Structures are given as structure tokens and as C-alpha cells.
């Protein structure tokens, strides 16, 4: 026993992530730069948009003095700001987050931001500087480090400034080792695609060589806010069940079902308990472990729960998606479609699909696909994604389209629980409910594009047809006049007008 207790020691979450930083996207210097920028931008978007604030985000990446491998990353937003006392915990302790609730958001648990700070600390041994205000009379500037073994923030310095302008927002400045020159294509791609799904945001990026990339806001409406909801019975596992039982105040299973689960009323609860074989008046805290397992099993197998509501989701909506596509891709034609809400395993989701054609969109050998999950672009591991599989399986010729034509397909999935394929969070898994919606969405926009392309082709052909008449009829008139020995060449204008009229019908 003694030996065992010495070998197996508890590790802190900070230590755990330190040891497993690959899974959080910090596997190499290029990827680390990409992930750091991405995580902090997403934190900023989550601090603004859900609060009804039009995001202004400024990102600057610069070389640390004299060292080409060490960068200083500064991300500034105009979000709600973080109450002064919470700043150290919010940034320098793992698993602290205001997001541990059930509604759609970009990240969960605020893991990414803290991971970035952790990575910066272990590669440069420099502290992070966080400046924030919630719009009060004061601005707080913290200098922080993470005590990795103990999963605790260490406050090195704290300064307080006057906030005459009542500025609110957060500025994070972190030192980090990386390789921007290798990361650059992905970073720029990420920013462009972020701008597509966040056309209501101003995003500025200054790279280490001082180049400014500006993505300007073109719409002033924000997507509808997600509403917090209770978990749906189909999406519950045993561990979650334990936690809910631990905090519940309900004395009977009937009340317990009605109180803690999404869309469960009295009648549904009664029918379920009858189906599961549990009396209505049992105290949930009295359930034995094997009964809890049986209870969760029954919830999964009961088919009469109402499907989850999509209130907790915050899709872009067709207007915003269209505006984003128009602004960043500048196509000649765009079609978008928001599918009706659906659910997989008790988790609601909405698929939004867009297709953009022509204009500044280049013709590539293969189809270009942009993938998004909860308004985040996915720029890695495209080939493993369910959308890619679907795009490749579609018979585009059926819609009068072909992979060599200049068009881009966009697929956005919103969900309280995105069905990731791997922990890397870059690929969507092939869930039948999800892939069905994606397929139908792409079909819908492909049909619209097909109709546009064929109409355009028809107009082009009609123009070409008319030009053939315009080219030859005058010559026929000229040569037959000369052949007949006449002077006046007959006017073919009327004949050409008749052709045109005929075309219009």
C-alpha cells in the first residue's frame, strides 16, 4: 500500500494539461502560434457578442526584443470585462469559467485561454499581463503566473488605473515561443474565415513585420442570443446524473424529473417513470448506484421525450451568413440556407450552409470547403470531416456544377455539444442526424446555384446566338445585293429585332 501511494500521486489539472498540451493544439511552434491567436480571439468574441456588444478586436503579434522565436501576443477587446477579483482565477486556474452551463458558446470551461498562458509560461518563463475593466471607475492590470503543480494563480503585480472614459474590455499580453512564418497561411485563413461568420465584428491584426490585416464590420445586428436550458434526458450520462442528484432539493422522482430536465412536464415524467419501473415518490438521493445506472439507461431508451428546443442555440441566421460571405469572398452569387433545428443524442443542433460562386472566388481543381462549428472556423484536418465526405460524395453534375468551377461551400454547425471526432476539435464526426442535415442543406444551396448558373449560361448562349445572326445576316444581304446587281442593301435590322423578340419569349 505504501509503495502504491508513492507511485501514484494526484496531479493538478494544470499539470495534466502541461503533460498533454498536444491535445489542446500546442504540438509544435507553428501550431502553437496559431492556437494562441485563435484561443484569445475566441475568448474575446465570447466576451462581446453574447453580451450584445458589437466586437472590436485588436490583435498584435510582435517579436520579443532580439529573439525571432519568441513573440509577444496582445489581444484587446471591448467585451464586458472581468471583475477585478476574478481575473487571476479566470486566466490562471484550469477549469474555472463562467461558461459551465448549457448553451451554445465558442469554448467550454475557458480552457483555451489558460492553455495559451500556460504554454507561454513554459516556453518563455515570462508572466502574462491581463488588463481589464467592467466599465467601473477603475482599470486593473495584473501580472500573473500559474503555479502548475498546485493549479493556482500567482499574482506578481497588480496596478490600478483611473477609468475616466468608463472603458470596458480585456487586454491579454502573453509571451510565447513559436514560428509565425510557418503559421502565417493558416492564421490568415483563420482570420478571413472568422470574419465570414462574424461580419458584425471589427477585427484588426498586425503581424510581426508590421503588416496590418483589417476585417471590417458590415452588419450591425448580432445573432440571436442563446438561452440557457436544462440538459435533455437523452444526453445524460451516469456521472452527470450523480452531480445533479447531489445538488437537487427535490424529494420525489416525479419532481426531480420535472425540475432538472429539458422539456419534461408532469405527464411525460409520469409516463417515463412507469416505463422505467421506478415509483414516482422515491427520493432521488436514495437511489443506489446500480439503480442510477438503470435509470440513465431507461432515459436513453425512452422515446417519448419531446425533442430538445433550439433556444439554447445561437445560429448566425441567413442574413448574417450571407453578409459575411459577400464581404470576405466577394462572389458573384451567394445562396445560404438555415436548416430546421434537429437533435442527436439529446443535443440540439442547427446546420447552416452557404454556397458562393464566381466573382473573386478562384476556380480550383477541387471544391473549396469552409467548415465552422459554433462560429469558429475549422482550418485543420479537412479530409477527416463529415462535411468533406459529403461534399465529395455529392454528384455535382446533377446540379449543373462541377468541381473545377469557381465555387465554395460553407457548412456551419451550432450545437450545445458539437459532435467532435477527436479531442483536437478540428473535425466533425459522422452522426447520421448531423450528416443528413448537412447533405440536405448543401443540396438546397447547390440547387439554387445550379439554377443561377444555368440561367446565366442560357443568357450567355442567347447572346452568342444573337451575335451569330448579327454577324452573318448583313453579309448575306451585302453579297446577295452585289450578286443581284442592286445598289441598295436591304436592312436586316428588323430581322435581328425579330430574333431578339423571339428570345425573350
Amino acid at each position, binding site marked *: 500500500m505504501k509503495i502504491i501511494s508513492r507511485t501514484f500521486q494526484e496531479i493538478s489539472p494544470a499539470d495534466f494539461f502541461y503533460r498533454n498540451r498536444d491535445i489542446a493544439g500546442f504540438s509544435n511552434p507553428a501550431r502553437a502560434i496559431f492556437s494562441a491567436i485563435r484561443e484569445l480571439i475566441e475568448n474575446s468574441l465570447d466576451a462581446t457578442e453574447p453580451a450584445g456588444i458589437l466586437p472590436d478586436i485588436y490583435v498584435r503579434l510582435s517579436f520579443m526584443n532580439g529573439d525571432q522565436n519568441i513573440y509577444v501576443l496582445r489581444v484587446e477587446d471591448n467585451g464586458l470585462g472581468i471583475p477585478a477579483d476574478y481575473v487571476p482565477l479566470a486566466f490562471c486556474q484550469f477549469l474555472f469559467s463562467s461558461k459551465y452551463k448549457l448553451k451554445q458558446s465558442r469554448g467550454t470551461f475557458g480552457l483555451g485561454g489558460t492553455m495559451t498562458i500556460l504554454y507561454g509560461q513554459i516556453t518563455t518563463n515570462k508572466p502574462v499581463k491581463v488588463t481589464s475593466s467592467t466599465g467601473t471607475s477603475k482599470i486593473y492590470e495584473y501580472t500573473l503566473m500559474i503555479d502548475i503543480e498546485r493549479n493556482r494563480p500567482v499574482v506578481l503585480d497588480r496596478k490600478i488605473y483611473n477609468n475616466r472614459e468608463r472603458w470596458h474590455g480585456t487586454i491579454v499580453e502573453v509571451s510565447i515561443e513559436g514560428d509565425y512564418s510557418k503559421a502565417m497561411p493558416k492564421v490568415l485563413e483563420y482570420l478571413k474565415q472568422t470574419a465570414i461568420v462574424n461580419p458584425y465584428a471589427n477585427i484588426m491584426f498586425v503581424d510581426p513585420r508590421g503588416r496590418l490585416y483589417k476585417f471590417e464590420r458590415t452588419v450591425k445586428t448580432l445573432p440571436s442570443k442563446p438561452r440557457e436550458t436544462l440538459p435533455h434526458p437523452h444526453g445524460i450520462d451516469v456521472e452527470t446524473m450523480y452531480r445533479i442528484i447531489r445538488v437537487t432539493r427535490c424529494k420525489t422522482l416525479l419532481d426531480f424529473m420535472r425540475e432538472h430536465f429539458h422539456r419534461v412536464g408532469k405527464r411525460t415524467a409520469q409516463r417515463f417513470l412507469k416505463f422505467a419501473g421506478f415509483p414516482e415518490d422515491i427520493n432521488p438521493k436514495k437511489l443506489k448506484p446500480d439503480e442510477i445506472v438503470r435509470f440513465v439507461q431507461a432515459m436513453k431508451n425512452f422515446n417519448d421525450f419531446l425533442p430538445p428546443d433550439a433556444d439554447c442555440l445561437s445560429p448566425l441566421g441567413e442574413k448574417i451568413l450571407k453578409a459575411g460571405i459577400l464581404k470576405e469572398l466577394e462572389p458573384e452569387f451567394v445562396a445560404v440556407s438555415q436548416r430546421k433545428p434537429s437533435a442527436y443524442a439529446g443535443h440540439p443542433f442547427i446546420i447552416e450552409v452557404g454556397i458562393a460562386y464566381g466573382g473573386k472566388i478562384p476556380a480550383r481543381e477541387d471544391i473549396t470547403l469552409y467548415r465552422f462549428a459554433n462560429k469558429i472556423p475549422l482550418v485543420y484536418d479537412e479530409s477527416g470531416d463529415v462535411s468533406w465526405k459529403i461534399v465529395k460524395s455529392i454528384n455535382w453534375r446533377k446540379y449543373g456544377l462541377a468541381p473545377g468551377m469557381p465555387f465554395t461551400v460553407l457548412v456551419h454547425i451550432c450545437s450545445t455539444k458539437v459532435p467532435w471526432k477527436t479531442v483536437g476539435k478540428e473535425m466533425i464526426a459522422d452522426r447520421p442526424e448531423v450528416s443528413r442535415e448537412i447533405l440536405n442543406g448543401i443540396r438546397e444551396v447547390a440547387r439554387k446555384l445550379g439554377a443561377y448558373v444555368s440561367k446565366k449560361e442560357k443568357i450567355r448562349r442567347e447572346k452568342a*446566338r444573337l451575335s451569330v445572326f448579327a454577324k*452573318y445576316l448583313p*453579309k448575306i444581304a451585302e453579297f*446577295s445585293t*452585289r*450578286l*443581284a446587281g442592286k445598289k441598295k442593301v436591304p436592312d*436586316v435590322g428588323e430581322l435581328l429585332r425579330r430574333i431578339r423578340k423571339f428570345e425573350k419569349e
Partner: protein
Amino acid sequence: MKKSRGLTTARRKRKEVLVKLERFGHELYEQLEKGLFPQITMPSRSTDNIYYNPELRQYVLGDKKVKRSTRNIRHLRPFTQLVWMAFFTHELTSNQKTSTLRDVFYSAQAYDISFKDQNESDNIITDLETVLGCTREDFNVFPEESSAVFGDLTIEYTVPNYEGKHLNLTSHPDGVMIGPALTSAEFVKTSADKVIAIEKGGLFTRFIEERVHEKFNAILVFLRGQAPRSTRYFIRRLNQELGLPVYIFTDADPWGMHIAMVIISGSANAAHIRELTTPDAKWAGVWASDIINYKLPNDKLKDVDIKRLHELMRDPRYKGELWQREINVFLKFKRKCELEAFSRYGLTHIVDKYLPERLKEMED
């Protein structure tokens, strides 16, 4: 000595063609004046509209017509090309200039009329022949290849700068080229009483050297393989205008036979044209039976030769007794030979022995 029966043939023909071309122009002009999309109707040249006419002893077009309308976008380009072609050949003919098929193809570019290739322009020329019912030589378009004639025939030129000039066709020992000028010339007089047409150049020269034209009182025509249309037309005129019988000598093989046949009965390709054939001309040799009778050096027939013979056997033009007989001899012995094969028995053997025997046989 015979006097030409049709002194004004060439001039009359020229006038006729000009009138036809102008009428074509008027027809289109009037449609345009009425605000109509111009259209024309002409006999179809598709294979299902080509028939053999036993009376005329040539292929002719049936009753099937095709309509070409400028309302139809697919017709528009060839229609324009056709109208231009009519205009251009009218210019040629009225100015008494000539052109070749190749030359026409390039001339079009000066008028911003495009032809993909010469094949396309040749096709339009054939269309114009069909519309007008006359040959391209009538509107002064000639092919590149040319054959020759030699013998006591005096002609009078009608082409500019030579108009009224006379030439006796024995003037040049190589023969006189059957080109545009000779084709449009008038026949003045001749002492010949027959025409001998020869497939091969070597033998044509030998015949001149051996004075065949004097010994046999003949006009010699060098066909140069499959005879060009102008040559076929020339032979026809010799036959029709001067009343001279025509004897054709070719290699003894199915291809040689067919060279003779095209002169006699024409080709399916020229079914839209009359007055190009010489139905009374005779294939005088070399026959398959001559190979045996004259013990000529020979070769084995190849598979393509035998295939061709079977085709000819079913061809309505080959119904005649002589043709069927010779085809059967070919198929029986499976042998062929060339005109030059007579040289095995000395250079003059063909003239001294074969020719008198054959001509006598034919005249009987």
C-alpha cells in the same frame, strides 16, 4: 476532216452560268426586301437520295430536297459562305478569271468570310454546284491536278489575252495541259477519228513517240490516274461535239476499271451534276483476259483488290456483259497487271501488236 459542231459552246456556257448566279442573287434579295429570312431549297446530296439512272447511265439525285434557312442558326454560316461563293464565282466568271479550290479557300479571307479548312470551302462549292446544277469548272473554279491532251485538234481560245488565237494540240511533244484555258476553248477542226485515253503518263509519252496519233488517227488524252472533272468534261466534248468514239486504257485491276467507269458513267459524288459523263466511251483494256492471252507479267491480287471487285460486281454501273466477264476472270485467276507490262516484249510491242488488235476488235 471534221468541223466542230458547237463553235460557241464555251461562250454559251459562260453566259448561262452568269445568269444562274444572278438569278440566285435576285431570289435572296427579294426575300430580304420582303423582310423575310432568306431561304433556299436544293436537292439533297445525302446517300439515300442518290440513284442510278439506267437511261442516263449515271448516278443522279432523287426528289428529296433540303431547305436551308437563315432563320436556323446552324444554317447561317454555311448559308453566308454559299452566298459569298456565288458572288465570288460570279466575279471570276464575268471577269474571265479562274481560281483553284485552294485559291478560293484563301480568297474568302479577303472578304472576312471564314472557312475552317479547305474541306469546308470545297463543300460549299459542291453546294453551289447543286443549287445551280452546273460544275465548278463552269464558274471557273478548277482543281489543282491537271491532265494533258495531244493530237490533231485545232482549238480557239476564249480566255482574255488569247481570245481568238488558234492552237493545234500537236504543237507540244509533251501534250497540252487541260487547264482552264483549254476547257473553255472552242473546237475548230480535227482530222482525228477517235480518242484514246490513257491512265499512265509513261505510256502517253510512248504513244506520242511512236506516233500513235498518226498511225491510228487519234487524239491522245492523258488521264493521270482518276481523271479530274475538267478532263472528263473535255472527253465528253470530244465525244459529243466532234462525234469521236473514246477508248480508255488503264491498268488491269479493279482500280483501273473504275477510272474508266467514272469517265463513262460518273461517280456518286457528282450525282448532282449532268453533262460530265461520256456514256459511249469504252474500256478498251487492259482486261483481265489480256493477262492470259498476251502472257503479260503479273502480280497476285491483294485482299483489298478482291474486296473491291466484289463491290464492283454489285454496282449497277457494272451490269454490262464486258464488265461482268472481266470481273469474273479477275476473280478466277486472281491476277493483275499494269499497262507497262507490255514492255516485257519490247518497247513497241503494245503499239505494234496489242493496240491494232484491240481497236479493230472494238470497232467491229
